[in-house]
């Protein structure tokens, strides 16, 4: 069961790297959140685990997609315009990152959760990768989400006893961040008519930018 969930998370990571359609990205990120939530139950069905799973699924698979979809609808940006790294190259780099992450996770004392550690790493790197290589603020926010999801999966794999308070605090942070970003993206796109962050390079005090 856990292995299947991890594979599904891995597939959502690859999917995140391979497309620039924002709605598809949001949907994929929502599924990833759902699988991450279920992952918490794999350490045994306790009250803490159930709370964590329910909170994760509620926030990542329901609330975030809602906020992001609303921001996308308002900004009118539907696709990523020309990412810095092409989608094909992204998939190849994704595969390479996966290999590196498996090697790295081999050196950790995570025992039978070795695979969860490597997939957690991989999800983190996917998040980093999206933040670095995509232009619209939406993809970057989704990258940030994946990054947090990776930390979550990684945390699950390393600690024997789940630190529910820590996870909850993390979730709250991310929630606040996404909430603020939703507003910021809306501001960016209404100010510059597009959510492309590369245009922020042209900001200066002179009157040249119009």
């Amino acid at each position, binding site marked *: 069961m856990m*292995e*299947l969930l*991890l*594979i599904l998370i*891995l*597939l959502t990571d*690859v999917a995140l790297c*391979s497309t620039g359609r924002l709605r598809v990205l949001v949907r994929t990120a929502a599924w990833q959140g759902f699988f991450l939530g279920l992952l918490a139950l794999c350490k045994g069905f306790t009250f803490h685990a159930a709370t964590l799973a329910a909170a994760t699924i509620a926030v990542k698979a329901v609330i975030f997609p809602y906020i992001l979809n609303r921001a996308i609808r308002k900004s009118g940006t539907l696709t990523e315009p020309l990412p810095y790294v092409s*989608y*094909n190259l992204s*998939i*190849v780099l*994704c*595969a390479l990152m*996966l*290999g590196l992450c*498996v090697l790295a996770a081999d050196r950790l004392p995570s025992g039978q959760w070795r*695979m969860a550690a*490597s997939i957690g790493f991989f999800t983190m790197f996917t998040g980093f990768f999206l933040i670095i290589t995509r232009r619209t603020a939406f993809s970057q926010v989704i990258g940030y989400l994946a990054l947090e999801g990776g930390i979550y999966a990684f945390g699950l794999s390393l600690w024997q006893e789940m630190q529910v308070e820590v996870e909850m605090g993390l979730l709250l942070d991310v929630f606040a961040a996404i909430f603020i970003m939703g507003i910021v993206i809306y501001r960016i796109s209404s100010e510059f008519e597009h959510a492309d962050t590369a245009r922020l390079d042209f900001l200066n005090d002179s009157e040249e930018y119009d």
Partner: protein
Amino acid sequence: MTALADFLIALALAPLLPGIINRVKAFFAGRQGQSPFQLYYDLLKLLRKGAVYSTCATYVFRLGPVIGLAAMLGALAVMPGGSGDALHNFDGGIIFFAYLLALARFAAILAALDTGSSFEGMGASREALYSALAEPPLFVALAMLVKTTGGLSFEAAFPDAALLGGTPRLLAAAALFLVFLAENCRIPTDDPNTHLELTMMHEVMVLDHSGPDFAFISYGAALKMWVLGALTARFLLPFGPGFELRQEALFLAAMFAIALLTGVVESCMARLRLNRVPAMLLAALALSFAAFVTA
């Protein structure tokens, strides 16, 4: 003995796979459709005909279909069928198999270039590009098999594939199914029904072949479908050696299920835009790489 039976079964049933795919497509389109045995009739008809050769074509053109068919027969000989035994079993058979597929492709590309037709040259160029992209997922999936089982022949490797978890095998089978679609020129990459469109690949390369040559090519294509289908199926069904009726039935059912699935994919999907095809094959690579690292 059972290996020989498997070989003959494959030879006899391979032309049925395209027939099943066509029948499924016809069902989805609400048509009656041609008989599933249509390819058999076509082959018989073509074999009775004479061949026409262009004056500017050389022996390379005549050699193409022969090499193609021979390579497919060789590939079939190292691939175990339902019984778990291969007709020809030796260490390194897995690599031999991959190279035979490449050899058949090489012969087809040379024959296409030999006609001097720019149209066929274009098809050959695309075939070369996509088959080059389809090779890494195939090799990574085979590497996963070798890494886990230590056997360099299919006969040694497949029984031990049961040691692998279900998920790596499923991932590898999914990757190999994408390779199957691309290598057999099925829909997300190429549309086997289009004969005069600028986006087609396989069909354009064989336009100049006629009569028995074309029969060889069609039969070779059917065998290729069988061999790659068997590879995909055997990742999911790791039988031991020896003949068992249940295994044989399961294997044939899996082969027809793959044909059925291909028909469904063809009915439900449009062909990908030409420049999106590499993304599909790279996704296959990512899948088989994931299988490799999780195995």
